[in-house]
Structures are given as C-alpha cells and as structure tokens.
C-alpha cells in the first residue's frame, strides 16, 4: 500500500510541473500588465516600470518561473499583485463559498431529480412521463447564466422573496446562509437534476424489467413498495455514479453562476484575477485545482482498495 501511495505521489509530480509550465506561459504571453491595472490608467510609464520592478515582473520569464516554482515546493503559491495577500489565503477564503454552493446545488439536484425520475419510470409512456422528460431536457438545454438571470428577475426583483447577490457564511446562521444560496444552487443544479432524472428513469426501467421484479409483482407486492424497496435500491448504483462523477464539475463550473450572483468563490476569484492580470493568483488557483483533483483521486483509490478487498493496489 505504502509503495503504491509513493508511486502515485511521484507520478503526480511531472503532471503538476507540466501544468505549472503551461499555465505560467499562457498567462505571461497574454497581453496586459498587472502594474498598469494597479496604478490606474493615468500612471506614467516610469511609475509602471517602478512597480513592475518591485513586483519582480521585469525579470526574464524563466527567472520568474523558477522563483515561483521554488516557492510552490515550499508551500508558498506567491502573493497576489493586486490584493497584496498570500495566494493561499485568497484560495482558502474563496473555496468556502464555492464548496457550499456545490454541495447545496447537488442536494437540490437530487431532491428534484430522484422523485421525477422515479415517477416518470413508474408512469412510463404516460403524459406525465413525457412531461417530466421534456422538463429534464429543458434543464439540460438551458444555459446556467440564462436560468440564473430568469430566477433573479422572478424571485429576487419581481417577488422579492430571495436575495439576488452575495454570500453569507455559515457563521451568520444556517438560514441566512441557505437563503443566499438557493437561487445560485438551483441555477447550478438544474443541469445536474436533468441528468440525474434521466439516469434515474432509465435505471429504474431497466430494473423493473428484471425477473425478480416480475416475480414480486406476481406475488402481489404493492407498486409503491415494489418501486421503493425492490427497484430503487438496485437502480441506485448508476445514479450515484453520475452524481459522483459530475460533482467535481460543480466546483470548477460555478464560474458563471458565481459571477451573476456575485458570490466570492473560486470562479469569481479566477475571473477577477484574469481581468486584473493577477498572474500569481491565476497560476496559484489552477495549480490548486489540479492538486485537489489528483489528491482526491488518490485518496479515493486508496480508500477503495481498503474497502473492497478484491482490489489490490500494489499489484500490476
């Protein structure tokens, strides 16, 4: 097990190095200068040059890269040019709203999708089934920004029921935390809900055609009990696979929704940093997300091996 973990960690290093070089080059080749953004348009070329020097932006690009990557190996992702705060601190502050939003979006998606999928399967071929699947298709087709704007107009501006912008941390109370998350979570979770609803329907239909279900039905088991106790539990496997596989995309895919709802999460941090040409933050966030994915996959593989004894991680 230990040698497997070591191998996985070592194999991640070249991936991270390649990612770091690519992102560093892309960012530095892009036109735009953080010093100009910080000083404002009325700054003189001399002032810009002076700030570039103090930020180390006038150094040759390879020197800037090595200086940055040396810091990364010591756990220092650098300092934001614009915010003057350590990049790790910016990431730590921004990841909280993003993860809260992703979890809430996932919960909403499940609450909508599972009942719809089960009902559609149960009423297969009926008007209700078609309606629900059209609804699911709509959910998959409608862009999240459009849905977000429509929700804002209806529930925020017209009805005034829910806040339309901002984020309140859990420390201010669960209710207010959720109030601010409802609309963005629905916008973000709609595509998920549509996907899960379709998967639930087809998965339950598949199970319903199996012999043990037919046998249970012949024995007089009631429909409600048949669906929930016998069919749904076995149909759950592919549904949960979809849920798990797409959850990561909720975190990285929240950029648009965070912008519309002004949520200070990772997506907003990246967008703002690109607009400010805050190279340190952009490369830090990209590297962080890469590490997060690699790390989680590694943990999952390790735990998987521990839970399922048939999997032998050391072999092969």
């Amino acid at each position: 097990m230990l040698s497997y973990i070591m191998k996985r960690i070592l194999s991640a290093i070249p991936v991270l190095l390649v990612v770091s070089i690519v992102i560093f080059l892309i960012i530095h080749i892009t036109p735009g200068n953080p010093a100009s953004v910080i000083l404002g348009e009325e700054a003189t070329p001399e002032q810009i040059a002076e700030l570039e020097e103090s930020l180390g932006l006038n150094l040759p690009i390879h020197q800037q890269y090595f200086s940055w990557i040396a810091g990364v190996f010591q756990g220092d992702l650098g300092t934001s040019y614009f915010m003057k705060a350590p990049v790790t601190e910016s990431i730590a502050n921004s990841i909280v709203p993003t993860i809260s939003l992703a979890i809430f979006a996932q919960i909403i998606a499940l609450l909508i999708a599972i009942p719809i999928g089960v009902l559609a399967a149960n009423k297969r071929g009926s008007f209700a089934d078609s309606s629900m699947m059209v609804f699911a298709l709509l959910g998959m087709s409608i862009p999240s920004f459009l849905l977000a704007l429509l929700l804002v107009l209806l529930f925020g501006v017209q009805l005034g029921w829910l806040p339309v912008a901002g984020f309140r941390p859990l420390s201010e109370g669960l209710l207010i935390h959720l109030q601010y998350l409802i609309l963005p979570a629905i916008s973000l979770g709609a595509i998920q809900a549509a996907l899960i609803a379709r998967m639930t329907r087809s998965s339950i239909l598949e199970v319903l055609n199996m012999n043990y279900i037919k046998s249970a039905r012949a024995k007089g088991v009631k429909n409600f009990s048949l669906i929930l106790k016998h069919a749904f539990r076995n149909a759950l496997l592919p549904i949960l696979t979809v849920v798990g596989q797409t959850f990561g995309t909720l975190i990285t895919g929240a950029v648009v929704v965070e912008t519309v709802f002004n949520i200070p999460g990772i997506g907003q941090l990246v967008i703002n940093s690109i607009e400010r040409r805050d190279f340190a933050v952009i490369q830090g966030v990209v590297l962080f997300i890469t590490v997060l994915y690699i790390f989680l996959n590694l943990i999952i593989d390790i735990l998987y091996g521990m839970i399922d004894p048939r999997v032998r991680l050391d072999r092969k």
Partner: protein
Amino acid sequence: MKLKRSFLALFLFAALAFLFAACDGGEETDADGSGESEGTEGSQTGGTLNIALNAQPPTLDPVVTTSTASRDTARMMFESLLVLNSEYEPTPLLAEEVENDNNQNFTFHLREGIMFHNGEEMTAEDVVASMNRWKENENQASEIIGDNEFEEVDEYTVSLELDEPSSLIMGIMAIAGQFGAIMPKDIAENAGPDGVTEYVGTGPYEFVEWAQDNYIHFQRFEDYQPLDEEPDGLAGARTAPVDEIYFYIAPDSSTRLAGIQSGEYDLAYQLPFDSYQQLMETDLKVEPSLAGDMILQYNSADGLFSDPKMRQAVNAALNIDEILQASLVDPEIYTMGANLMEDENVQWATDAGEEYYNQNDEELARQLLDEAGYDGEEVKIVTTRDYQHYYDSSVVIQEQLENLGMNVSLEVYDWPSLTDLVQDESAWHMRVNGYTFRPNPTQVLYLQPTTAGVGQDDRADELMDSIAEADTEEEARASWEEMQEYVWSEYLPGTKLGRYSHLYVMADYVDGFVYSNGGIFWNISVNK
C-alpha cells in the same frame, strides 16, 4: 467500483466543506456602530448603508493610485489639507487657513484637535510626512514642487516654498483622485511603493474590514470633528449620519441592477446606460452624474494620424449626435459641447473652438483627406466591450468613416489587453476612451505627450507651459482659452464626443447623496 469512488468523492467534498465552513467562523468583525442616533450635529440616523461598488480597489491608499474605486472608498477614512468645492475651488479641510504668498510660498495653519482613528492627535509632523510622500507619488506635484519639501514650522503649522510661482499647485493639492491623504507619521514613512496596508486617517468613517472581492466595511468615527460649514462638493461639513457603510464589490452591472431593484443594496454604482428608462419607471432614485468626457483619441504620435490633416478630416466628418445616441443612449444622461473642462469649473470652463465641434461636414472632410494624401490605407480603431459605450461609439464611428470612403477596421480586446496594446504606438490609429474631469487643464491626460499616442506639438507645449507658469489665475485662463481653440482648430490629439454620466441609483429612503468628483457618501442618511 465507480459507485464507491463516487460515494467517496462526495463524502470527501462534504467533509472539506464543513472543515472550511468551520474555519470561516468569526471572520466577520462586528462594528461598534451600536445604533446610537445621537452625536455629531444631532443628524445621525443610524443604520447601515449597503453600496454596490463596480470594482474592487487595487488599494485603499489613494496616494499610490488613480483608481476611482480607491478614491471613492479611501476618502471615507482619509482627508487632505485642501479639497475642491463644487466649483473646483481649493478649500481648506484639515488646514484651518492657508497663507498664499504670491503662489510661491505657502503656510498651512492646521486645525487643532483633529484625531486620527488610532486616538492620536494630528500634528504638523504627520502632515509633513504624508504630504512629502504624496508629492513623490503625484506626477504634477512632483514636477512643480521638485526637490522642495513640506516643512514643519511648529506643532500646528506647515510650510511649502516653491522655486517658481505656480497658480496650479493649490488646485493640485486639493485634487480628488490621487489625493494627499494625511495619516500618522510612522505609517506614512514606512509605506512601500504599492501603498500602506494600515488604514488610519482622520475621516468621518474608520476602516473596519476589507474582505477581498467581497466587501469593504467602514463604521462611523465617533471622535470626528466636522467643519462648521455647509457641505459644498468635497468641502464643508461631513456628518456621518449612518453607523456603518458596506461597499460590496459587484463588478457585474446586471448584478448591481438586480441588487438595487430587489433591495439587496441601498445604492448602486454605475448602472448600464440602457437601463435608465427602465429605472425611471421605478420608485428608485436615479442620479445621472456627469463624470467625464468620452474622447475619440487619435494616435498623433505615430503613423497616419501623426498628420494633423487626417485628424482634422475625421473630426470634420463626425456626426456626434448619432454617436452619442448609439452609445450613451439617452440625452438625459449625456451633454454635448466643445468645453474640455467641467462646466462648473469656474476657473477654466470655456467654449473656445466650438465651431469645430460636431461639424458633420463630409465635403470638408474629403477635402482634408485629399490634402493629407490619404489613399485608402487601413485605419485601425481599437476598442473593448468591457465598456460598452466605447464599443458602441467605435462601431458608429467606423460606419461614418467608411461612408466617407475610408478603409476602417475595428479590433476588439478585453480592457487590460487594450491598455497594454495602446502603449505600442504602431498598433493602432484611433480609440474611444473616457477621461474623468480634472481640476486644471494641464492634468487632462489626452493633452499630455506622456500619454500613449499623444504626439509632441511645440505650440501645445508652449501654451501648456504658459498655463503652468502663469503668475495669476487670469493669465492662466487666457492661455487655456487659446490652447482650447488651438486643440479644436489644429492640434486635435482627440475629439471630444460628449460628456457622459455615471448612473447612481438608490432606494427612496436614501437621502443626501452628492456627486462631486465621484460619489460622496459621508452625508448620506438612511431613513427607512
């Protein structure tokens, strides 16, 4: 296998979320506003004012940046010796009185008993350290003051001696943008090139917290000593009626719009021009505030447009009514005219050269193009959609010039790329850009050869020098009238298209908003 991986992934994310959420607690700082409704002038209404700001300031130190977001937030807590009143006249704020000896020797008598937010009293040594730091950072101050320095005369008196008289220096010291923020001596002296990080001023509100990309929080400074004068622009009494002010950073204009309509914010910055009519039909208060000039800037430093005839030809051809209707949408929120300084600026406002504004004369334009020897060369307009009115204006200008037979292309960039690109004077010919009002003409950026794309012109230099070196205000004004006439008739580093407003919108219970070189929030009350 996939199932279990998914379960585990979900579990790990959930665990992470709770971990982060737990770490997040306690970050919020409680302001000590306490809802107390008595105090300064008996005008405090209490409550909180939530403002949707359009951009995060790069710093809250106004001395090192010209960013308007920094200006508007920093001046809640920092003050300067002099400020501009509504007619752009330098007026004492932290100075009690200024003795001006022939525009060359200045003595500033400071107000006594002015407290910093850290509880210490402001004295001459703080002012000297702050002002000497400011003059190193502000270009024009640095040029005029040179190696001279502000000096302490006694505990409440500061002096400044110039080598030559300058009729401009008082106005520059009162500048609203990159202003001379007075802060404690040790903070000013230890400031780095990218500004201070400890925000201690003398203003009516004190700094509480800055949650990056989220909000900036101020609370009333209870020991603030307001002037006993009526508010007038940036001058006069600052009363701090509300307990707390939050500037929420909301860069997306549709978010600010929805936020003010739904009551999430009490006041919103710079809403889109095309929302004006829609907003006028609501209960919200809409305050279009003239904020600056939209200029078609020519690259007079290099290429085709270094020939003044080319610039004059384009200027002659433009139908400015059409351009402004397409970009600034509603005549209620823009104005037209040749005056290059703010209309209320009594010292400098003039209509000299107005016959050259909005000529819309194709025949003259063709004649000037012939004289310039234009032969269908490509003319490149560079623009951005980050400021929609720049883009919309550019599209109309392109069409008008193509109708004239010119070969015009439009290149669109994001804002940071564009600001970088225009530094390369071989890469563009024209661009539309906004310039905020400046207190005196020598600070107008598109007239300065230090600005990218502005070519050297001996006559313009001479006239600008005579403004800067004038002994009296009258002499300076006469030179400026001559300069503005020359700008319109021959020099034309840019064509002023029109004067644009920023749309400030607030709830009907918000009173006391004033716009003067940016929004002023210290006299706003919330009367819910």
